[in-house]
């Protein structure tokens, strides 16, 4: 990823030239500049706002919808839902199938105003890809949101940004202001009569706000618990109006699909889900980072060619392929392509596409405990299986990790996994907690049992001195939460 632009103009021309050479292979990141992101003029010079120009001047909203549907773009927020299909549920884009005398059809002709929300909450542990897009090329997201808003007939759009991303907030607000000054936001955008107001909302630190219906409650000023679905937000979302919530990375694909077409997009990754993906790796690897690659690179390529392999001479113990709420995979899955179907078949989820890598010098039980502590703390408390189940799992895991667990504890953990599984909770947070827990108990069964049989952590036992401090830290952390 290109990170620096020297200030003098000849080297910045050089930078741009090099960046543009990658426009067709690394559409999302070729213009990223973390130190000095392109301002409005710089972005225009780099071909920016051409996708939005095309959408507004050459396409009808339905035309954009067809193009995006045809591109096969799937949501990058975790679930991989096809973006075109999501948009097509918005009433303004619905075919008028209902007969005209239906009482539900009163609004069919007056395209009801809708909202677009960009989900920039990015609080899933091990996920930091959106941050690069937000901080590195803010105008790309604004251009993307103009295209999406136009398509779903929204005149108001929000960027919902996590509260901790101060730098991103500053850069986005600056870019929004520039876009207003240059008639890319506000009334009569570029003389097309289309109006869009775009606002930045910064949150204040709570993971559940990333769940799209909780996010909508948060924006309405309510306590951010998820809503029941249906109705789906596309029909009744923010202030009861049709609302589309899309992830930052999903949206950032749009200008490029508009510019280069859906065939190009599909050709980026002929054997996999269409397009490129912001892949990442963190944890116990030599070279953690983010890379935009064609969809479907294998875990092995990502781990060894890009992330540099394991650090400190450790061997791979396991990894989470797409953030904290995905199932563990192990050595035997290394040749699995990182796309939605393949990772699904391997028993996990592509999630956000960021590997969290565990080496064999670190305790897998301690890792799972840390993950469950996260979910227990971030549970919104709305439904019992999650509110009570996640802290219960933490209690049991703490016992096991400290060498005071029993075999019944393992049975109980398994039962808890069933109680918190899909369909039994109000939203996907609790099932997301089950995924790493249940898979860890399967792949690292031996480690769990050794904790119980030896009455201590076998790995930590080797580092006796260290351990006392760890335990006292953990105790204090318990008080701190």
């Amino acid at each position: 990823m290109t990170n620096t632009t020297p200030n003098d103009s000849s080297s910045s021309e050089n930078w741009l030239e090099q960046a543009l050479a990658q426009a067709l292979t690394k559409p999302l990141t070729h213009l990223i500049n973390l130190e000095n992101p392109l301002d409005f003029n710089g972005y225009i010079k780099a071909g920016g706002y051409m996708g939005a120009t095309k959408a507004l001047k050459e396409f009808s909203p339905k035309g954009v919808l067809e193009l995006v549907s045809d591109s096969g773009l799937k949501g990058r927020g975790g679930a991989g839902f096809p973006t075109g299909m999501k948009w097509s549920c918005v009433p303004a884009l619905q075919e008028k199938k209902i007969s005209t005398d239906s009482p539900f059809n009163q609004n069919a002709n007056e395209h009801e105003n809708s909202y677009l929300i960009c989900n920039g909450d990015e609080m899933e542990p091990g996920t930091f890809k959106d941050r690069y897009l937000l901080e590195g090329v803010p105008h790309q997201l604004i251009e993307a949101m103009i295209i999406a808003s136009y398509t779903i007939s929204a005149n108001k759009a929000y960027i919902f940004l996590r509260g901790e991303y101060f730098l991103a907030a500053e850069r986005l607000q600056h870019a929004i202001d520039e876009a207003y000054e240059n008639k890319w936001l506000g009334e009569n955008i570029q003389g097309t009569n289309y109006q869009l107001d775009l606002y930045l909302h910064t949150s204040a630190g709570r993971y559940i706000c990333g769940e799209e219906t909780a996010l909508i409650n948060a924006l309405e000023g309510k306590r951010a618990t998820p809503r029941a679905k249906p109705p789906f937000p596309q029909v009744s979302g923010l202030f009861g109006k049709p609302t589309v919530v899309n992830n930052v990375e999903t949206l950032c694909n749009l200008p490029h699909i508009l510019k280069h077409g859906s065939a190009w997009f599909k050709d980026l990754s002929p054997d996999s889900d269409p397009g490129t993906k912001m892949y990442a790796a963190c944890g116990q690897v030599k070279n953690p980072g983010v890379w935009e690659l064609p969809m479907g690179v294998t875990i092995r390529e990502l781990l060894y060619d890009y992330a540099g392999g394991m650090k400190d001479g450790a061997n791979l113990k396991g990894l989470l392929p797409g953030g904290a709420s995905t199932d563990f995979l192990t050595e035997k899955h290394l040749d699995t392509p990182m796309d939605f179907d393949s990772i699904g078949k391997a028993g996990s989820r592509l999630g956000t596409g960021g590997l969290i890598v565990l080496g064999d010098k670190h305790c897998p039980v301690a890792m799972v405990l840390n993950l469950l502590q996260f979910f227990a703390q971030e549970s919104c408390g709305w439904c019992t299986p999650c509110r009570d189940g996640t802290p219960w799992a933490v209690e049991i895991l703490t016992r096991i990790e400290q060498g005071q667990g029993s075999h019944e504890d393992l049975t109980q953990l398994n039962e808890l996994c069933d109680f918190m599984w899909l369909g039994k909770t109000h939203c996907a947070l609790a099932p997301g907690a089950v995924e790493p827990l249940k898979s860890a108990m399967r792949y690292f069964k031996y480690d769990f049992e050794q904790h119980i049989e030896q009455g201590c952590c076998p790995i930590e036992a080797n580092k006796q001195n260290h351990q006392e401090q760890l335990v006292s830290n953990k105790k204090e952390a318990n008080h701190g939460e």
Partner: protein
Amino acid sequence: MNNNNNDFSLNQRIPSVMIADEEVDFNQYLSSAEMSAIEHEVSIMETRESVGIEALKIVQQHRGWISDDSLIAIAQCLNISSAQLEGVATFYNLIYRQKVGHYVIHLCDSISCHLTGYDEILNVIKQHLNIVYGQTTSDGQFTLLSNVCLGSCDKSPAMMIGGKHYHSLTSDSVVAILNGLSQNVGEGND
């Protein structure tokens, strides 16, 4: 983070003397700068209720934290009950419902940091400042809190202080950062 007992967090209200909502008059309580910033947010959203979090942040920026009086004043200003606003305020990690130090250290305790040296960094901070999670140093300079993943997992361990992110922390660098900040307070130039 055993959620059952001894739960203690700055965004949770400690039982305090109950103040009747009528005892605070928001028109007098909130400064004109606070009011105009809140009204600006109201002009953007469809309802007054929906700017709860913005209003809390605005007042916190001016006063450092959200006292009971502040909470009641904001609720009045937004025409909602203080109970409803409390439900919002206590939901978020970055809204402080207790007095905090000049700098609040938000140390990431999520998985990537856990795998790359969080324990050691926490120890160093605790020893250096002589506080544990949830506490403020006796000189009022630093409060120590945990934070979920800060989005710096490729440069972990990470922490955030006063809107600034620090990453790739080592025992030495974290002490240097804290010393630098405390010198700032001392010289009154931050």
